């Protein structure tokens, strides 16, 4: 079963066509990168998949189910999770509480006032596992707002992962990071991908990350799809080099 299928997606804001007629298929376990110069429509495209925006025309299918009009919180329940370009965490709560809230939401305890011991145990175990996986166990009781940019981003990714998604959407996971942090995040994404068998769609500016991680790459320019293929094919594609890699390099 195809994980994500996007058919002829278009988004207009008044006269401006931000995304024009884009189609894409993401298979289970695939890492897909979406690249393109600023203003290419990447974020708009991404926001439609996660439900932040509704498409003007076209369809989005998640595991063969049309979700084009489904609310973001419902998409989460179906098995999609996302992170944001600007890290979105709960700054005045500890790392542990951040993850705990995510786990409780995922397990559907969000409305309970009283929890059984088993349930509390289950939440605790999952939080510990996520902490271990992320390497943040030492910092578990510090406020997220006090941590480094990289650790905040890691927390955000782990919160998304707590939802046990089958599709993870990462919006510029390494934006604004130094080399070491970028490298650590890339390592984390690879590790999560391998262990969980996730499909991942990511927008990314750092070409080292893109070519290192992605199974397939889609290139957008001015709202349209310029090219699509394996990293090798994209690297060799003349149109892409001219429109994008040339100017960026």
């Amino acid at each position: 079963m195809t994980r994500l299928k996007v058919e002829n997606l278009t988004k207009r804001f008044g006269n401006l066509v931000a995304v024009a007629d884009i189609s894409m298929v993401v298979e289970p376990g695939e890492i897909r990168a979406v690249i393109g110069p600023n203003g290419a429509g990447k974020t708009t495209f991404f926001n439609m998949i996660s439900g932040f925006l509704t498409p003007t025309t076209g369809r989005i299918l998640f595991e063969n189910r049309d979700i084009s009009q489904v609310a973001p919180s419902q998409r989460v329940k179906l098995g999609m999770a996302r992170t944001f370009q600007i890290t979105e965490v709960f700054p005045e709560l500890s790392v542990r509480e951040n993850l705990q809230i995510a786990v409780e939401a995922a397990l559907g305890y969000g409305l309970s006032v009283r929890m059984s011991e088993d349930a509390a145990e289950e939440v605790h175990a999952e939080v510990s596992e996520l902490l271990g996986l992320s390497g943040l166990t030492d910092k578990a009781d510090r406020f997220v707002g006090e941590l480094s940019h990289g650790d905040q981003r890691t927390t955000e990714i782990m919160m998304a992962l707590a939802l046990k998604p089958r599709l993870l959407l990462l919006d510029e996971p390494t934006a604004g990071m130094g080399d070491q942090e970028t490298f650590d995040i890339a390592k984390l994404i690879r590790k999560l991908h391998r262990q969980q068998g996730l499909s991942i769609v990511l927008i990314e500016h750092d070409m080292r990350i893109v070519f290192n991680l992605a199974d397939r790459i889609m290139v957008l320019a001015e709202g349209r799809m310029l090219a699509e293929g394996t990293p090798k094919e994209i690297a060799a594609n003349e149109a892409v080099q001219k429109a994008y890699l040339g100017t960026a390099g």
Partner: protein
Amino acid sequence: MLNNGSLTRYAPSVIGWIVLVSLPEWINVVAYTDLGSRVVILGLAAMALNFLLGHTGVLSFGHAAYFGLGAYGAGLTLRYLAPSTGLAILVGTGVGMMAAMLIGPLIIRLRGVYFAMVTIAFGQIFYFIAFRWSTLTGGDDGLTNWSRQPINLGFATIDLKSPVAFYYLVLFVFAVATAIMAKLLNSPFGRSLLAIRENERRALFLGIPVNLRIWLSWTVSCGFASVAGAMYALLNNFVDPRTLHWSQSGAFVIMAVLGGMRSFWGPLIGAAIYVVLQDYLSSRTSNWMSLVGLVFVLVVLFFPRGVLGMLGRRTQA
């Protein structure tokens, strides 16, 4: 290490409760027992407001409406329905909470200043009803000719005439209400409210139905405000429309801010400071209103994090 940790964690609460329980023993040295009741009642209202403001991150400037509905609900019950203090508290709470629940769907989609403005404006509806419907409410002169009645427990009867006896009823209601609020906040439900306060967008993308949670938090918060309102009516044996006025809402907000919005007990401390100060100023000068206004200005400029906010970044419930 563990002992030390739990000592510093629980010591403030223990001391706080000792102060509250022993209050009638020492307050006559500096003031009078009813002032203590007023602090605890308005403190409960400010803590109820803070359930929404400090723990859900939603700014209501209209809580006096629900406080006042609680007060009128209690007063009208005793005046017209039945001579039962317990019933009066229940009716007051029910009326306020029901009104909040019904208004909720109209406002939960709004945020920030817009939410604040709409809550103020909605609050005024009840003010005008109380003001205009004078055959029922006594209008501007207030609802009179009733008083709190002894509580009959079956095996014993508690006479509430004396200020001290009534103070202990207030403290009992306060203890139950705050215990429920603390329990709610320390649950997955409470944490999902904190999540909304911290970052609404992230909460939404964790699958938390944000608007629905704000509706619940709003209803709970207004419900406890009306409990406080009912007790306030019983304290004075009197209710008037000023109880519902937006300037009273402002007072609740300043109490919460003054004490510290991020802490559970902060608003009680804020209420104590505010009530005592107002009581002192209004007995000293007819221009107390400017001085209270000055308190608002000074708190904003110099104490934005509140008293408990200055002491530590976070005090656990």
